């Protein structure tokens, strides 16, 4: 939705699924439609959803860079999943193009690879850092007392 606000050529809409039990976001720009899904592996097929199949059936993937024919759409899915070692980071973010029954992906764009520089930049500026000042310091009197005691020991020795 925020993407759609920044780019007027993109439309974002929150839509209920067919049974009205949950909502998904549809981003569209002209005849290109995109929904998003979290999966464990980049090759994992997304679970069945009637809305996805509806878009996939209407989709005419043309992987040669030509726009869909008049009245046709191009349906894509944004697949993402966390890293195994550090789940705070995405392991992969791919745009895939499903076939008519969503039983396989006929095309794929690896966004982390394609925009590697941008990804690195974004990762650097993720958190609000601050100086760790949680360090206690010895009170001046205590240091003095310690020195005095050490001196007293020296004298007795």
């Amino acid at each position, binding site marked *: 939705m*925020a993407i759609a606000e920044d780019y007027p050529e993109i439309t974002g809409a929150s839509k209920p699924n067919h049974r009205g039990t949950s909502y998904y976001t549809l981003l569209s720009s002209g005849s290109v439609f995109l929904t998003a899904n979290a999966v464990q592996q980049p090759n994992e097929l997304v679970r069945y959803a009637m809305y996805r199949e509806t878009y996939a059936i209407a989709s005419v993937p043309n992987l040669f860079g030509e726009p869909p024919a008049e009245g046709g759409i191009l349906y894509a899915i944004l697949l993402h999943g966390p890293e195994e070692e550090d789940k705070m980071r995405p392991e992969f973010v791919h745009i895939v193009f499903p076939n008519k029954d969503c039983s396989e992906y006929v095309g794929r764009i690896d966004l982390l690879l394609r925009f590697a520089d941008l990804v690195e930049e974004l990762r650097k500026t993720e958190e609000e850092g*601050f100086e760790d000042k949680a360090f206690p*310091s*010895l009170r001046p009197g205590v240091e003095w007392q310690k020195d005095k005691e050490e001196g007293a020991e020296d004298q007795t020795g």
Partner: protein
Amino acid sequence: MKRGTPGFVGARLKEAREARGLTATALSEILRVTRQSVSQYENEQQTPRPEVMRKIEEVLNLPPAFFSRPVEDEPGDRKIFYRDMESTTKLARARMDRRYLWLNEIADYLQQFVSFPPVDFPRFETPRDPTEISWDSIEVMASKTREYWGLGEGPISNVVSLLESNGAVVARGMMEADELDAFSEWREWHEHNETPYVFLGADKQNAFRSRYDGAHELGHLVLHRNIDKKHVDNTRTHKLIEKQAYRFAGAFLLPASSFANDFYAPSLDTFRALKPKWKVSIAMMIYRSADLGFVGKEQTRRLWINRTRRGWRLREPLDDALDIEEPRLLRRAFELLVNEGVQSRDAIRFALPYASSDIEELAGLPPGFLEDKPAPISLKAYSRKRNGGTNRQPQGPGEIVDFRTTGDT
């Protein structure tokens, strides 16, 4: 004449029993004495026989010195922000009250030798009556708190460290009560200014939850510093101040504008994807999205239903992907005392007559720190020393340090 325990202080037995979460009846059963005997010990109508005294020390895991310490005046009208006043059992509250006083005593003891970072919390002109605090003003105060501490609108890297760096004394410990997640207080300490104390529950072992708890307590410390204690004790207003702290935590951890930029769909998958970045739970993001009007009432209801259907009510995805933020200030203070030779472990145990494990838990020390056994040697620290060659103070017992001292050539 009956043999008793000279110097026995009955109030200390009650304190110890409550700190261990035991009723007088339960303790009497363990000690194999009557309930009346326990009551008489606590009221000093009689003192325990030596063999009963030994059993008391063993069962309550406290040294003999604890039971002969004079009792200082109980702090008076303290304003402690407990999470759930109604469902928390009296026993659980009493347990935490006692342990919290132990924490206070540990911090007081340390401050004889060390200075903690100065308290640097923003102070707003908040009303004495919480009903006069509006939701909008909470959003503004959360935003101004970030601004005061020089933070932008991104995710907070470490909430506990942020609190400690600005002068709060933070502890983590087992609450042993589901309803008690955390509590906080502005505590007056002798002639010094008030110090914020935050006690975080360690029971749930969930880093996301704990970060929220820290932000929630920050909300109390910022929003409710001026409110009258009667509002904390009143059921109706207590619920309101809890909601206000909840709203503050959401606004502090998820600022409206930057969270909006990341909020690309009102779905659980979206929240799951955002969880690692913002380090807040999916549940928290649902609440926040509803507070900010990103999702409508029906959508919010569906999100909760689907969260339950996915089995995320008790355990969310990625819950184990983040390390719990541990307090470090008290631990560092103890390490400083020991490593600098200001106080020996014996002297610490003598001055603080609790079980070593109690002090270690409350101060975030590694188990066994206060015992005189040598700690394992940190080879990692040694290699860092060799590579870095800094004059850093040793960080714990058993760490290898350079032979050379300042001034050696």
